[in-house]
């Protein structure tokens, strides 16, 4: 079965003023890019998708992940992975344990093997016991990606994931991330400022406007 993330008839309001409306279906391996100036509601959309809509906002519409309605599920039960602009690796765990933290429960030995294999795949061989702080920015970004992928999410959200990387690193990392998304056939939604990110994603691009709409919620 083709996996999908389906945003149905979503309207998010701040107080009683409509902020954005979206109606999109993202299929596995596809990346939907959301662009727009700050204040246009990009991060509010992400918050709604993760089930963490802050106080003062309200939303109408529903979210289906692989045909299952997850609109009312708590964020930790949604199986939606998140990749931020900061790698946000846990400083009290080393690289391997950061990844182990994300993996489902299971046989300890198998888990370790899987971690080592995937580290190798992403060119991070021998980094397992290193502390996150001792890695370069690009390495940290790759560990963060691995952490999300190995948590076996059913969809993935990217929150300006490459904005803190310098130009060359940015392209490499971008390619790697999108390749992995395609390889895992995950529906993905990316919020970005940068049009080149959106083009590289090679999917549909939606631009949110900062203007408030006239209708009331």
């Amino acid at each position, binding site marked *: 079965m083709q996996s999908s993330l389906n945003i149905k008839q979503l309207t998010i309001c701040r107080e009683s003023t409509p902020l954005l409306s979206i109606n999109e279906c993202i299929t596995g391996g596809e990346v939907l890019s959301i662009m727009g100036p700050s204040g246009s509601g990009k991060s509010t959309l992400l918050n709604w998708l993760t089930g963490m809509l802050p106080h003062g906002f309200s939303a109408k519409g529903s979210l289906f992940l692989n045909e299952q309605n997850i609109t009312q599920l708590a*964020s*930790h039960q949604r*199986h939606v992975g998140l990749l*931020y602009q900061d790698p946000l690796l*846990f400083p*009290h*765990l080393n690289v391997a344990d950061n990844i182990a*933290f994300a993996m489902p429960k299971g046989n300890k030995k198998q888990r370790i093997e899987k971690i080592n294999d995937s580290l190798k795949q992403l060119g991070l061989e021998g980094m397992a016991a290193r502390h996150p702080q001792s890695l370069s920015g690009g390495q940290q970004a790759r560990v963060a990606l691995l952490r999300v992928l190995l948590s076996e999410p059913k969809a993935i959200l990217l929150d300006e994931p490459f904005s803190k990387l310098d130009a060359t690193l940015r392209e490499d990392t971008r390619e790697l991330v999108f390749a992995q998304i395609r390889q895992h056939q995950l529906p993905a939604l990316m919020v970005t400022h940068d049009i080149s990110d959106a083009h590289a994603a090679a999917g549909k691009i939606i631009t949110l406007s900062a203007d408030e709409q006239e209708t009331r919620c």
Partner: protein
Amino acid sequence: MIQPRDLFTQSIQLSPALLMALLVIPVVGGLIGVLLPAFGYIPALDKTTFTLSGFYSLFNTAGFGTMLLLSAVSSLVSTLLAFTITVLILACYFNSPWLYRIQRLLGPILVIPHAAAAIAISFLITPSGMMSRLFSPWLTQWQSPADWLLPHDPWAISMILGLTLKELPFLLLMALGALAQADLGEKLRAQHKVAMSLGYCPMTAFFKVVLPNLYPFLRLPILAVLAYASASVEIPLILGPNAPPTLAVAIMQWFNDVDLTLRIQASAGAIMQLLLTMTLLLSWWLLEKLIKRFSYNSLINGRREYAGQLIMRFTQLLTVILLTVIMLSLIGLILWSFAGYWRFPDALPSQFVLLHWQHALQHMQTPLLNTITIGFIATFVAVILTLSTLEAEQLRARNLSNFASLLIYLPMLIPSIAFLFGLVWLQEQVGSHHAYFNVIFGHLLFVLPYVFLSLASSYRRLDPRFSYLAASLGVTPSKVFLRVKLPQLLAPILIAFALGLAVSFSQYLPTLLSGGGRINTITTEAVALAGGASRRVSAVYALMQMLLPAMAFLLAWFIPKLVFTKQNAAHYVSTSSTKTTP
């Protein structure tokens, strides 16, 4: 960095050393002052040979083992409880606006002096207290109070309750303070979100991700709480057992005993207290290491859920109970302070009178004046010293060494009962007979660490570019300090000032001992009255003890608002006047 050589810079450079000396010399000197008599050296009693007799009589004291056990168990259990509840509340409300509501409800407890809190709790739990009045006689059938062992129960339950309730807000506020640091708080919240997006339930996410990174910021406060609890005097005196009492209370009684030779035993006891507290701190540290070691595997085992819902419900219930206990204690205190005749089991007094407040206020003037004067002077000195030490840090462009930072917390970590008696002796030795000065000096020891703790983070966070900018405009370092830095820090300075006042207001032992009992403050009066004849007068004093620091904090909160509104108003006037001029 090239140092300017003006007078301001030079005197500022001296302040870290001065601050250290002010903290270290009295503590170390005080310890020597009990070490000598502990080994039998008291020239005043014509005892000038060193013996171990003090320790022998200490070990032979009836119930000595129980005393040690009481001190150790009550402090460890209360610290563990306070820490656990703090963590549970944080975990349960980490992403909820309730966290800040709870903070606002518990915050005021922090500034309530220990004595007042103990009095309030004892009013709640005694057999004739608020709790049993509320349930009698309709539920309990009691027409006269039950003969319970509360408070003062030999298992120290009341005392542990008192200590826990007093320590909990401190730890919670310290944790929230750490979370309020922009970099740390945001990072931990984001990581908490990451863990939830990885499928962790909020509780587990907190324990596996936030706690390990938050704990280092709680370690020192916890150790301070543990050290304090192991050697405190007020709470065990008001809530603890007395057959036998805790070691600290026993030491105080021996020091004050008619039999002057007991001072040798008391000094030996003070040394034991020091060893006990150090042992407890060490055990906490070991416990921490053990837990860290044995829980590491469960951090990364991938398990997402540990009865999170159940723990959440439990924590919510616990929070409600805690808040109810605190509210009822306060209500009981207020009722007693206005009560006429109030026979058990009536839930309300049969009449309300102003007599107790009138009577107390008539007799309160001197203690009140002393409390405020001493508090203001000690806090003023502490704030000045702290500010100049922090400024010296910035001029030297490096923070105090870890060792120096640890020294600042010395008076918080070393049980005061162990060095205060020696300090009094020391003050006698250097011929300092001015009681007022001695008390202010004694208070300074305890005010300084808190003021430093409260100001350091804001001062160090100050954007250095403002001073670079000012310096590039040719402004002298003293002007940068006075005109650029201090105005930006108005709010934190006032908060630190209020905290300093609150700490000073609550001091019991330092006031009693350094002042030779000559200087009465609201707190010494409250403790003296706590064991006394009148619940009503005692309630008035306990409430006064709460009102004073509350007023200090209210002012600290209000003054910046006033200043900024004024500035805005002035700004408004000036702009509007320019508008009207053609």
